[in-house]
């Protein structure tokens, strides 16, 4: 039986269960487009997402996307979920303040699709996912230097004798 929950209710349910680990609920400014999202503590991400997947009222069985974002002071990992049973959606953000060694737990044991999504975020942002079964680059060559979607990224000059820059 479908039991649609709006995002605010999902936030309150999570807050009740995890307390401090659920940092904030933010909505886009008036007139701006975007989804409301829930910020969570990155060290608790695995247990929170496990709850999202397995709780009978939430049942987020579909992982839509994992993205990375590079901000001046932090890196973010963004998860988009959808439930086929209850037809509701939620956006979860984890803020990684340590930009030199960003780490977060893998969720590839909960959703199999997370395996390649996390590899892509690792490939382009250099965020390493702990306990990931096969964490290596997915799009770029294995011996590529740097993480291209970081704002401070500089392209290497040559790769295997091939000039890369303009």
């Amino acid at each position, binding site marked *: 039986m479908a039991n649609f929950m709006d995002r605010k209710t999902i936030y309150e349910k999570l807050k009740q269960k995890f307390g401090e680990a659920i940092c904030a609920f933010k909505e886009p400014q008036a007139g701006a487009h975007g989804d409301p999202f829930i910020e969570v503590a990155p060290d608790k991400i695995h247990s929170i997402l496990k709850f999202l997947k397995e709780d009978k009222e939430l049942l987020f069985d579909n992982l839509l996307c994992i993205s990375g974002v590079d901000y001046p002071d932090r890196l973010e990992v963004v998860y988009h979920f959808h439930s086929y049973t209850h037809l509701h959606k939620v956006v979860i953000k984890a803020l990684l303040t340590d930009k030199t060694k960003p780490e977060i737990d893998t969720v590839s044991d909960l959703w199999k699709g997370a395996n390649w999504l996390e590899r892509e975020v690792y490939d382009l942002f250099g965020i390493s996912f702990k306990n990931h079964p096969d964490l290596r680059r997915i799009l770029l*060559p294995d011996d590529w230097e740097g993480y*291209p979607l970081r704002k401070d990224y500089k392209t290497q000059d040559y790769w*295997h004798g*091939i000039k*890369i820059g303009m």
Partner: protein
Amino acid sequence: MTLPLDAVQPKIQETQLDDILGQNILLTTVDRVANWARYSAIWPFTFGLACCAIEMMAVGSPRYDLDRFGAGVFRATPRQADLMIVAGTVTIKMAERVRRLYEQMCEPRYVISMGSCATHGGPYWQYGYHVLKGVDRVIPVDVYVPGCPPRPEALIQGILMLQEKIRKESITKVLFKSHGQLHG
């Protein structure tokens, strides 16, 4: 009963020899014969990397009919092809493979760089960390076809230009080219 040979075929007079030779023997140069054979039967290499490949397929279809120019037999292996049409975005990861496939082709071999991406990186020319800024950085290119993607007519004109180029080649120059510098 057999007729004597002279009765069937009258003996050729010395004066008739010129007429017979004139009707049956062509005199030409080795260059012209070799070039005629080469430009009349170009075998392209099936090599689609992106959306340009769709236009390349259209060129091979009945509407544009590349077979009119003897270049319609696309091969799936470099060993049977002598024309590589680089149709699409060459990523840096792919550039190594492009070079290897080019080296596996038999000589004389020709390359058409089809579309903006293959020619100079296309829309990725400035910020594309992953795109090769022109396939001529890894292999020598004979004809560049501009467009994004080029119309089938444009690719056909590129092939006609390549035929024109082959027509002007000389055996001695081809030998020199294959031993001269190819990769900078």
